[in-house]
């Protein structure tokens, strides 16, 4: 979620690349409540930091790539995650990677709030916000997938625990209705239709 917020922030600002400032905004937004981030002794208002809740992204939607500085930040976050013994890179690791940042938005935050590298890391370590748990990025993606009504054949196969070729055979045989996205080759399956291929297992009674 933090990364999608970061990309959105870059698109919204009309930038050509996703820079560390966008990633910081994305991370803060991911752990915010009602636009406010409470971090250690600081309360950060996202609107004051430039988050615009109303304005969308100009059309045609720009395509943005990560900047070289953003790549270095991800690398640093991955090193922090690994040294902390975490399996995945979470929002907290990305935020911790900003501790030594002395440019851009982080520099402004440090100057405005008297934040030091140590106090920032201490505040990140104390976060008890649902959006900042380890591997939260993965968890949020999978929970989004669990509530989606339309699935790809691969996701549907995973849901039923069958091979994707088996799922494609169900589709070809008409056991699962498939829908084509307008103008696209890709298809989607309705979650509720997948239960139709499940037949009740009847236990045969033993003759005594």
């Amino acid at each position, binding site marked *: 979620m933090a*990364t999608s917020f970061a990309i959105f922030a870059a698109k919204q600002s009309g930038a050509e690349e996703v820079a560390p400032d966008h990633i910081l905004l994305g991370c803060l937004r991911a752990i915010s409540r009602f636009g406010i981030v409470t971090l250690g002794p600081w309360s950060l208002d996202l609107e004051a930091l430039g988050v615009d809740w109303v304005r969308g992204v100009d059309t045609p939607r720009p*395509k943005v790539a990560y900047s070289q500085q953003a790549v270095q930040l991800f690398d640093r976050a991955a090193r922090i995650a690994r040294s902390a013994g975490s399996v995945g890179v979470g929002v907290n690791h990305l935020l911790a990677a900003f501790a030594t940042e002395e440019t851009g938005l982080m520099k402004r935050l440090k100057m405005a709030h008297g934040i030091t590298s140590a106090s920032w890391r201490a505040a990140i370590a104390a976060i008890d916000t649902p959006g900042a748990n380890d591997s939260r990025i993965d968890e949020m993606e999978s929970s989004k997938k669990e509530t989606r009504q339309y699935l790809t054949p691969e996701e549907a196969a995973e849901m039923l625990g069958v091979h994707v*070729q088996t799922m494609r055979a169900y589709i070809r045989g008409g056991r699962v209705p498939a829908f084509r996205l307008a103008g696209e080759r890709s298809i989607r399956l309705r979650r509720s239709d997948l239960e139709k291929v499940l037949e009740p297992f009847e236990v045969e009674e033993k003759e005594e």
Partner: protein
Amino acid sequence: MSYFVVKRDLPGVTPEALQSAGLRAKSCCAEMTGEGQPVRWVRSFYLPEKAQTHCYFEAASQSAVEEANKRARIPFTEIAEVIEMTPDMV
């Protein structure tokens, strides 16, 4: 949708750099899919003796896979379409 392999030569790459690249790839694929250009990173294999990775993607076109990798800023040497085969299929 087709499958593609993305080959990369990454001498001296660290496990952390691979994890960082994976996170960037995943977020860029999600972003492109949200934009209506579905791309899915399926899985990757690292070949330590050759310092190479072979990363498998599912997408409608090779150009979509190329764009996802460029957006994620992950270098590659070759992208080629592949045909999937698993033990279940033979």
